[in-house]
């Protein structure tokens, strides 16, 4: 069999340089794989590799230990050049138990490395994973480089003697053993991780010591072990100078909201009802101190939206965040906000499937719902984030539009963006856009008997005045009934309804003048344009690069504004023979492009609860070029 330990014997502790590597840590939910992965990512970022990570949790809270449903995985893709996706096929798979091997092996590259925790492959665990034979022995892994390492027992031995630690506790540190081993394989610095362990477990000496011991043991094992004679190096990526931090889409969005609050001077008010994956934003902001951030866990999504709207009426930056079914429930309230013409931010962290679907998986199939998902004609702006770090800018932009144009805005993110992370070149606050709420403070109309305030007398952008309660003399009542242009009084008059319908649409359409043009990356005059939106950004950019490296000609553009579209969108899509729209839905942006511009846009549509990867998209493009 190829790839067994002995097979690559000979070249001793050779260092092979690699441009990019994908490692996946997989084990039972209880095995601490997310932790191992995150720390590996941190150390990797520190030495200046570019990276993208992708965690994959089980849907169950705690599926029974050892079962297939209980497998938890964390993938990290890092390289010496900028990379854009969490990577398709892993090069290395750490498998702590049979279930982890079974659920992840099929994705490992042919000939890839398997680091198996031998101790985890007990008869009991094999049964749990429905293996009749032990895959470490029955040839299942013939096509891979298998390394059998008794991680658990080695961890226990390593921690032996640390007092306050039973061997049962000790075994819990095996994820640090694995982390140490992989750190050695890829020449990661040990200090970053050691220091983190010191800090993190400061209050419990035994645990701290055990984890440190396990980590060192794993690292040293790599160095000394006979069976594993090769290790790799991945040089730092050439990155723009500046200060960086690793960030996932949830944190970036949370920080974007705080930034929007600071830049607009409006207090931040987030009302949400827990739902996977949007809950994380509520958690993140509820911990936020010092910026006057108010978070409320509402009784349901309808209440959450209405609380945000009430706060907006009061002059706050009203925000509500949700996923999947939660969006359905907010539709009526969003429609009211369209009528009231109040700023309100609705963050939709899209997830897989209709109805409850696959709550922990990713998908971006709420686009048409965001645009059309309310009764009657109720137009609103839709903005979509493109990468984990870009969630910061996307949120800021959505808030800017909402406040400037007095309108609810739907910001589309998705599970992949929310959970995966990448290095983020930190902006200077001074460079962030200023947002002017421009509250109304005085009457705006001279009536027969004196000055009056007309809540629907619009400015040049067609935005109405925003007078918050407490402002003397500007008392007014707004509501969901159709209202007379300018005065805002209730009106059932035919011509007025036509006019108000036109005005509401024109206001949103007019935002196109305020969002810049769509940029095209087309170095060598291609015939095919790949048009992306949302989290396909990385895959599209990566795929195009791969195609070009092979001399292929392909252009790409990415939409951050889905409604309205940038003014030049039509011109651009019309100027290519082929327009390919990759989406994790059945073709929603494609429909919009076809309808708006009568261009025969084609799609690549993936409905697997997974993001689109550069590799697969490369194939699609190549095949259609």
């Amino acid at each position, binding site marked *: 069999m190829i790839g067994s330990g002995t097979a690559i014997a000979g070249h001793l502790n050779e260092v092979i340089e690699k441009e990019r590597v994908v490692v996946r840590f997989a084990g039972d939910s209880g095995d601490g794989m997310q932790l191992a992965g995150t720390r590996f990512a941190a150390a990797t970022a520190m030495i200046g590799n570019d990276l993208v990570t992708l965690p994959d949790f089980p849907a169950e809270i705690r599926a029974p230990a050892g079962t297939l449903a209980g497998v938890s995985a964390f993938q990290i893709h890092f390289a010496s050049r900028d990379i854009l996706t969490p990577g398709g096929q892993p090069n290395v798979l750490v498998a702590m138990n049979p279930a982890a091997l079974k659920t992840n092996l099929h994705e490992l590259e042919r000939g890839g490395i398997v680091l198996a925790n031998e101790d985890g492959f007990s008869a009991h665990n094999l049964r749990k994973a429905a293996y009749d034979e032990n895959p470490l022995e029955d040839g299942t892994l013939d096509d891979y480089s298998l390394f059998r390492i008794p991680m658990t027992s080695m961890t226990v031995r390593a921690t032996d003697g640390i007092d306050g630690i039973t061997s049962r506790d000790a075994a819990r540190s095996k994820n640090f053993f694995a982390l140490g081993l992989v750190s050695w394989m890829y020449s990661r610095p040990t200090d970053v991780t050691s220091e983190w362990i010191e800090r993190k477990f400061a209050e419990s000496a035994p645990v701290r010591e055990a984890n440190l011991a396990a980590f060192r043991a794993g690292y040293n094992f790599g160095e000394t072990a006979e069976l594993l004679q090769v290790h790799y190096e991945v040089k730092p990526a050439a990155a723009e100078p500046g200060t960086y931090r690793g960030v996932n889409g949830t944190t970036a969005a949370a920080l974007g909201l705080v930034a929007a609050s*600071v830049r607009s001077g409006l207090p931040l008010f987030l009302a949400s009802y827990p739902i996977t994956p949007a809950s994380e934003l509520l958690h993140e902001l509820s911990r936020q101190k010092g910026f006057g951030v108010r978070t409320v866990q509402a009784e349901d999504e309808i209440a959450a939206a209405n609380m945000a709207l009430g706060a907006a009426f009061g002059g706050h930056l009203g925000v509500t965040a949700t996923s999947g079914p939660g969006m359905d429930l907010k539709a009526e309230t969003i429609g009211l906000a369209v009528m009231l013409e109040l700023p309100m931010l609705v963050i939709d962290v899209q997830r897989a499937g209709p109805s409850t679907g696959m709550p922990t998986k990713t998908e971006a199939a709420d686009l048409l719902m965001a645009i059309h998902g309310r009764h009657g004609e109720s137009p609103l702006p839709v903005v979509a984030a493109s990468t984990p770090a870009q969630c910061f800018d996307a949120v800021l932009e959505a808030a800017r539009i909402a406040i400037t144009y007095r309108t609810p805005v739907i910001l589309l993110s998705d599970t992949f963006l929310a959970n995966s992370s990448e290095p983020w070149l*930190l902006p200077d606050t001074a460079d962030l856009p200023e947002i002017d709420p421009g509250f109304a403070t005085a009457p705006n109309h001279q009536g027969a008997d004196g000055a009056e305030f007309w809540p629907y007398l619009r400015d040049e952008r067609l935005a109405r005045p925003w007078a918050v309660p407490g402002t003397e003399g500007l008392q007014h009542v707004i509501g*969901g009934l159709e209202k007379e242009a300018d005065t805002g009084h209730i009106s059932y008059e035919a011509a007025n309804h036509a006019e108000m319908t036109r005005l509401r649409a024109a206001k949103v359409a007019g935002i196109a003048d305020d969002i810049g043009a769509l940029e095209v990356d087309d170095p060598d005059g291609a015939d095919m344009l790949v048009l992306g939106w949302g989290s396909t950004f990385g895959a599209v950019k990566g795929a195009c690069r791969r195609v070009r490296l092979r001399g292929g000609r392909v252009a790409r553009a990415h939409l951050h504004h889905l409604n309205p579209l940038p003014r030049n969108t039509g011109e651009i899509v019309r100027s290519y023979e082929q327009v390919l729209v990759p989406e994790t839905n059945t073709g929603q942006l494609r429909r919009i492009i076809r309808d708006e511009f009568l261009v025969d846009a084609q799609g690549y549509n993936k409905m697997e609860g997974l993001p689109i990867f550069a590799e697969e998209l490369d194939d699609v493009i190549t095949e259609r070029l």
Partner: protein
Amino acid sequence: MSGQNGNDGPLGLTKKDFASDQETRWCPGCGDYAILATVQQFLPELGLPPERLVFVAGIGCSGRFAYYMNTYGMHGIHGRAPAIATGLALARPDLSVWVVTGDGDGLSIGGNHLIHALRRNVPIKILLFNNQIYGLTKGQYSPTSEQGKVTKSTPFGSHDHPFNPIALALGAEASFAARTVDTDRDHQAGVLRAAAAHEGSAFVEIYQNCNVFNDGAFEAIRGKRGRENQIRLEHDEPIRFGAEGERGVVRGADQRLRTVDVGEVGEEALLVHDAHDSNPAQAFALAHLAEQPTGPTPIGVFRDIRRPVYAAPLTRKLETEHGTAGAEELDALLRSGDTWTVD
């Protein structure tokens, strides 16, 4: 007393300062007119200028209320007013936030927001105009309609056992629950006064006659001899009623509350009302003294207790926090956690 003429508001404001220029659009004879007049007349007492008040209304005839007030107002969507008001009240503790809802708006589609607002004890005052019918949609039965009610949607009589709004509110941990009558101006003003003084959410059920689709529903306590059927609850007072207060309420040997002739049991046997009782059991028992307002029925303040107002201390903290943090703090925040530099 001060509810009588609106002329004595601390700011010298009067009823008309709270009346908008919009033409009222209720049916002639609707009980809503009486409530509007009483509220407008009462408000000057608060000593707040009109711009500090907000009326958040649901959908229904009752929902029209907001348009007739010269305050800030929002006519929201059906049943959601308590949620809108919650957001507003938490964002703006400096405002006096009032909710106007109906028995359909507040108890049918909006029931969940109502009970959660009450348990949270958010500082909002909820006025529920109970006419035991859906008015705006032209006469279907509501969650407070008596069982067997014949309406457009129940031509052969309804099958639903109705809610007792006060009992529901108490079951939902309301810190303030009261009941009054549309046309009973003084009593209503008194209840509004207590609701306004209460810290936290206040629930006020107002019996309101819909003379078009449910005329006379409250005849027993609103009609000519109605006063005699009103069991007016006054804190710390023995509970008695009737033309000369000849009737009263006692707890019988069977542990239940009963109405009796004071003559028979003697004054001291009467139950003394304790609106401040931290335990809602007694108030709940009083709410169930009458299942429907067709005979002697308690009105007034059933419960009025002190309980922490939702997030009050935090709200104050956030108020001061906001604005103090600017560009510098934001830069620091962005740079918190593990960062590294490339140069």
